[in-house]
């Protein structure tokens, strides 16, 4: 192609698609772009890929329903597979049978032809001999009458030989010398002769003729017979021999046996086989369809019924007929459904009984307790008139009744959870109100303990769909716990919400700076009646069920209640609730580990600066970080707290090792504490220093 010539003249860049001359095509496309002309169709190979993709999508789209049907319908698959496989078998069988029949026909034909030809050759030989001897037989006489002209004799011979095999074979005679011009078949010359309308020149292959010229004997070959005036050939077997005529001139005599009959037979056999094959394939497909249907129908029925069972319609059963495998499937399925129904009913009954029992016990216990309570109150009010021992007894009776009452209430509450009888009554609640109510309630206790309760993140509404009574109970528990275990230090209640219109979460974290939690305790605090140190005297008289109930309350909301703590570093309990009831939580707006934890400040367990990070961290004022943490403006749930990480053993900085403190560190920590104490309720190093010692002294106590 004359690319260099045509393109610069340039009209269209049809040659650009050839990747041969890059610099040239680059120049060309630049020129085209500069000229503002659109690239001609197919000029650039770039757009082909999207087009291909579009095409493949366009092809695939109508196929998709079919593919889905294929994947979902076992009957279709089995029938299609059966059809394909039986088709393959039938085809193979057909090919083999047709091949066998063809071979058999050909062999029989060849044998018959051979004997026919040999007979003919000997007749021809005899006739030639007889003409020599001038025997008075018919052939000789005919020859004599034709003035012994070998041409006439040959014609007669061909006619005579061919007369015996009208339609079965044809005879061709060719003079042996090949330099004689062909095509002239007039009886006057020694041209080729043929019986019927066989074209002798085109029907006899040249190589066979040469073979006869050079060698004596009988030869045969498969060829095509050509009729005069027609190009269509007929398959045939040709047998030839070189003979001498009456004048001892050599000539070639051929017998041509067309396979007309054999081909017809073969066609008949093939047609029959094809018809039979098609029938067999169709029948097999139909049989497969029927058979699969027999199996698939009950399976589909079973699937449908088990779906309905799963949906809660426990009385659904399969229809069972007969005694076959399908019937057994149905029977065992029904048995399973029956057992399932019985078990579920038993469980429901049990649950109902449990609830009933709890309700009854509740009533039966509460009525006498009310009487006792009132009596104790009356006695308590009148204790001034008693002698000291009785007065003290009245006080003890009065005080312990409180404890007994709350224990009973919590026991009943938790058994309601266990019985699944707890119901959520969610409504939009501003958690700030709840927190304020809780703090108001905890204020007397906090005053006794000398604790200040600080609220952060209450600048904006923190609204969630929740059960206010339950949330208040949880938060009251957390705040009272924090105050009780906070060693008189401040308690920080932090509120935050995050998320858009859907999938949002709100969180309340209660942070204390008390004895904290030992590793592993962060999960155990939620166990029923769990106590960090059973030997430690109880001062506040918790029941040991509060946090268990709180966890159940959180769970009822679809929320989380998690704990974090470090020995001597205080603890943080975080309640996370979905903003919309029933939604799944993906994260919490407040990290479980507070930002003023030792690890985040680069300190080790004892409050000492950690190697590397320590120096810098210790210069940062504690309150700055805490204030930052208190700012709830960061509305993005942190992915790192997406999963509950309630086990503080996984966190460095909460290890069990408590290293005795040295004097130097004490000074440094105190200095840091001073800087923090300016206006910040969150006390840093100084507090931890004491707490660090405190851990060994008294251990943590949790499980209010």
């Amino acid at each position, binding site marked *: 192609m004359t690319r260099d010539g045509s393109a610069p003249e340039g009209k269209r860049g049809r040659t650009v698609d050839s990747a041969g001359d890059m610099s040239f095509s680059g120049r060309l496309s630049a020129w085209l772009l500069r000229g503002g002309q659109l690239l001609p169709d197919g000029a650039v190979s770039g757009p082909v890929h999207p087009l291909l993709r579009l095409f493949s999508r366009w092809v695939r789209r109508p196929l998709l329903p079919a593919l889905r049907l294929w994947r979902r319908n076992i009957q279709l698959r089995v029938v299609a597979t059966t059809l394909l496989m039986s088709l393959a078998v039938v085809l193979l069988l057909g090919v083999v049978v047709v091949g066998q029949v063809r071979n058999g026909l050909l062999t029989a034909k060849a044998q018959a032809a051979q004997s026919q030809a040999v007979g003919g050759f000997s007749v021809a030989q005899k006739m030639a001999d007889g003409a020599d001897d001038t025997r008075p037989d018919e052939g000789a006489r005919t020859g004599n009458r034709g003035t012994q002209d070998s041409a006439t004799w040959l014609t007669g011979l061909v006619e005579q030989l061919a007369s015996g095999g009208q339609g079965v074979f044809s005879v061709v005679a060719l003079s042996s010398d090949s330099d004689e011009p062909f095509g002239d078949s007039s009886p006057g010359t020694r041209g080729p002769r043929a019986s019927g309308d066989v074209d002798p020149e085109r029907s006899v292959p040249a190589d066979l003729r040469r073979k006869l010229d050079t060698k004596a004997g009988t030869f045969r070959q498969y060829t095509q017979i050509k009729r005069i005036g027609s190009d269509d050939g007929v398959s045939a077997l040709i047998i030839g021999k070189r003979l001498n005529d009456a004048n001892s001139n050599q000539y070639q005599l051929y017998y041509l046996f067309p396979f007309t009959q054999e081909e017809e037979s073969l066609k008949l056999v093939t047609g029959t086989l094809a018809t039979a094959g098609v029938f067999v394939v169709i029948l097999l497909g139909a049989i497969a369809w029927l058979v699969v249907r027999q199996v698939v129908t009950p399976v589909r029925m079973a699937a449908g019924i088990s779906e309905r069972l799963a949906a809660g319609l426990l009385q659904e059963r399969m229809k069972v007929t007969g005694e076959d495998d399908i019937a057994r499937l149905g029977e065992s399925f029904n048995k399973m459904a029956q057992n399932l129904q019985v078990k579920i009913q038993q469980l429901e009954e049990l649950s109902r009984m449990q609830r009933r029992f709890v309700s009854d016990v509740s009533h039966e216990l509460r009525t*006498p307790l009310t009487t006792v309570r009132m009596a104790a109150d009356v006695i308590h009010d009148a204790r001034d008139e008693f002698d000291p021992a009785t007065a003290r007894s009245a006080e003890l009776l009065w005080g312990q009744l409180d404890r007994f009452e709350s224990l009973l209430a919590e026991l009943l509450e938790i058994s309601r959870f266990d019985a699944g009888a707890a119901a959520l009554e969610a409504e939009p609640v501003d958690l700030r109100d709840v927190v304020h109510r809780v703090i108001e309630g905890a204020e007397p206790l906090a005053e006794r303990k000398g604790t200040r309760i600080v609220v952060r993140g209450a600048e904006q509404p923190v609204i969630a769909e929740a059960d206010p009574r339950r949330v208040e109970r949880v938060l009251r528990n957390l705040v009272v716990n924090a105050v009780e275990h906070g060693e008189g230090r401040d308690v920080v209640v932090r509120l935050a919400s995050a998320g858009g219109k859907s999938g949002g979460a709100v969180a309340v974290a209660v942070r204390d700076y008390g004895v904290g939690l030992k590793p592993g305790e962060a999960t155990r605090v939620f166990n029923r009646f769990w106590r960090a140190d059973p030997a430690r005297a109880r001062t506040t008289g918790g029941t040991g069920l509060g946090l268990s109930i709180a966890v159940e309350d959180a769970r009822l909301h679809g929320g989380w209640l998690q704990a974090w703590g470090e020995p001597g570093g205080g603890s943080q309990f975080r309640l996370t609730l979905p903003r919309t009831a029933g939604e799944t939580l993906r994260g919490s707006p407040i990290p479980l580990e507070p930002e003023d934890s030792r690890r985040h400040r680069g300190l080790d367990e004892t409050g000492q600066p950690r190697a590397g990070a320590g120096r810098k961290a210790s210069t940062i004022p504690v309150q700055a970080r805490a204030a930052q943490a208190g700012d709830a403006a960061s509305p993005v749930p942190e992915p790192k707290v997406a999963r509950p990480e309630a086990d503080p053993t996984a966190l460095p900085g909460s290890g069990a090792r408590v290293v005795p403190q040295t004097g130097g560190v004490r000074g440094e920590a105190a200095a840091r504490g001073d800087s923090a104490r300016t206006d910040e309720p969150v006390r840093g190093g100084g507090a931890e220093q004491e707490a660090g010692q405190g851990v060994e002294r008294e251990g943590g106590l949790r499980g209010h």
Partner: protein
Amino acid sequence: MKGRVLVVDDDTALAEMLGIVLRGEGFEPSFVSDGDKALAAFRETKPDLVLLDLMLPGRDGIEVCRLIRAESGVPIVMLTAKSDTVDVVVGLESGADDYIVKPFKPKELVARIRARLRRSEEPTPEQLAIGDLVIDVAGHSVKRDGQSIALTPLEFDLLVALARKPWQVFTREVLLEQVWGYRHAADTRLVNVHVQRLRSKVEKDPERPEIVVTVRGVGYKAGPS
């Protein structure tokens, strides 16, 4: 001060204890232990307040409550051992003004009773209008087009509280404090149930209230007068 209290309770020990406490506070208690006899005793003693246990032999407390409410607006305080949702709500819907869960402290009980009785002590002549209703506070009557509507004292208090400040939206907590006399936030279902009962009496179409309007997410307010 009026202080006749009818105690309907089958537990004799509790009834006796209640009697001791109530007498100590200056009330005049009378007792009945059978639900079937409760109504007769009520008619006979004409109490200023009924303390009603929910679980009773014979007629149960709910039924008794309904019967008393059918003929009188006297305050009814339920004693219940079940704080489960359904029981309390059923009790409130059958006409009880308030409930108190066993075990309760005597002071709590007395405070509740006082709160229910308090209202009748300070009549101030006052005329209020809310929607097409005319409220005579001193005369304890609510009229629409001259037809008076019978309300229980509690329902009346609720309506008056709303009608006095028609510009204000009352949260359930505020209503609990003003109408029921709870110092601390208690069960807001009390408010919900009684607003429903009030609406069923004063609204033309309780499904589309015009007198007591719900402010979603906040509480209730009086409709435009």
